[in-house]
């Protein structure tokens, strides 16, 4: 594994030297992933909260669907988005294929069910406690969803981080709709896949370590902010 340490040192060296190419790749990774997670939360949080808080016919089916969609295969999502955005597809005129926008769309599709399914669990649990009080206050559906999401915010941070994890690690979907095009749509995971297929296993691993370090940095920042917020809220 000597080669690995050498490669890691080189990779870290490239970052420290602010190597344009690596920085570009890292930047795009963060941009795509964070946008996708934000979009997925925008969709998944209210959706999951609604399924968790409201009793409606088909609720169990919706729960099963959300839970099952956590297992959406990236390649399948990639293909679906590809066929939709491709020149002969329904949204081909937008010309989004092989752009970061397409990658964001694909990851959003992938991550939204995860956020929604986990949110449903969290909110359902909290709603068991709050439901009668809310009903007594005559709170409307919108107010309920908002209050539940707000009061569950610390647990939902972990949910968002799970979505973030899935998005950062994901390669199958962004590869298909982004194309891993150098200087255009190459992100950390597709770069790692490329180095692997070139047989540069050490470099691939080193990039993986860099990716994990980025994930740790993002997660650490989020958790630190959370910890201080919790301390304020719980005294």
């Amino acid at each position: 594994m000597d080669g690995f340490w050498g490669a890691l040192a080189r990779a870290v060296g490239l970052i420290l030297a602010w190597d344009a190419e690596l920085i570009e790749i890292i930047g795009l990774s963060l941009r795509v992933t964070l946008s996708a997670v934000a979009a997925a939360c925008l969709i998944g949080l209210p959706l999951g909260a609604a399924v968790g808080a409201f009793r409606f016919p088909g609720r169990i089916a919706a729960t099963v669907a959300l839970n099952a969609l956590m297992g959406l295969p990236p390649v399948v999502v990639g293909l679906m988005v590809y066929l939709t955005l491709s020149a002969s597809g329904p949204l081909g005129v937008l010309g989004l294929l092989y752009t970061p926008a397409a990658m964001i769309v694909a990851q959003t599709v992938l991550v939204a069910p995860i956020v929604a399914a986990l949110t449903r669990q969290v909110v359902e649990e909290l709603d068991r406690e709050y439901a009668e009080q809310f009903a007594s206050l005559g709170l409307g559906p919108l107010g309920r969803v908002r209050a539940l999401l707000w009061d569950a915010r610390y647990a939902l941070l972990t949910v968002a981080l799970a979505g973030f994890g899935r998005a950062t690690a994901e390669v199958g979907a962004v590869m298909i709709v982004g194309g891993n095009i150098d200087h255009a749509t190459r992100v950390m995971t597709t770069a790692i896949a490329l180095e692997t297929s070139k047989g540069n296993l050490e470099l691939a691993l080193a990039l993986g370590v860099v990716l994990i370090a980025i994930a740790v940095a993002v997660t650490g920042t989020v958790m630190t902010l959370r910890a201080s917020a919790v301390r304020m809220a719980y005294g």
Partner: protein
Amino acid sequence: MAEPLLSASGLCFEAGGGRLIDGVDLAIRPGARVAVMGANGAGKSLLLRLLHGLIRPSAGEILWRGRPPGREARQAQAMVFQRPVLLRRSVRANLRFALAARGAGRADRIARAEQALVRARLDRLAQRPARLLSAGEQQRLAVARALACAPRLLFLDEPTASLDPASALAVEALIRDAHADGVAIVLVTHDAGQARRLGDELVFLDAGRVAETGALPGALEAPRSEAARAWVEGRLHTGPAR
């Protein structure tokens, strides 16, 4: 006699294989003060939740002003739960939240919340996270919240159970004030003195059935039913088989 605000007929509730509320008939007139009493597990809290529309009866009917209760009924009622449910927010935010749910405008909300804080002597605690309050403080907050909603009918489930004597008297005074403003009160209590002080009518439950009704304080002085007599005398009463 005025048309009842809320009336229930043949109310039943079943769960866990048992009939927990069994054929309760009840009418609550505007401005009434009903004390609901009975042993632990008699079904008092369940009855309140049924009347308030939080759970659906397995049989029987509930009418609000003669019609099935709708949104208007909900907005005209409030309830203090036996175990207060407080949001993970400050004391003040809990009050404002409740008022917002009732559709109060922003300025109104702020003003009424401050007023409620002062009346329940919670103003010193306004910034505290509500869930860190002592049990008695939480109960006072729950009462303050319900009263701030300005209901026409108020359900109270043992609202002074963990209050110190002075706070209990203060809460009783708040309840009396509300009644003076025309609010109908349904009060669950294990305290015979409180029932006499705050109640006009007694509904005594035994194993989900109404065992005794009557005007207070008379009904508690000379109960006709064995269940209520045992209760007053502090004797164990095994009641009918369930």
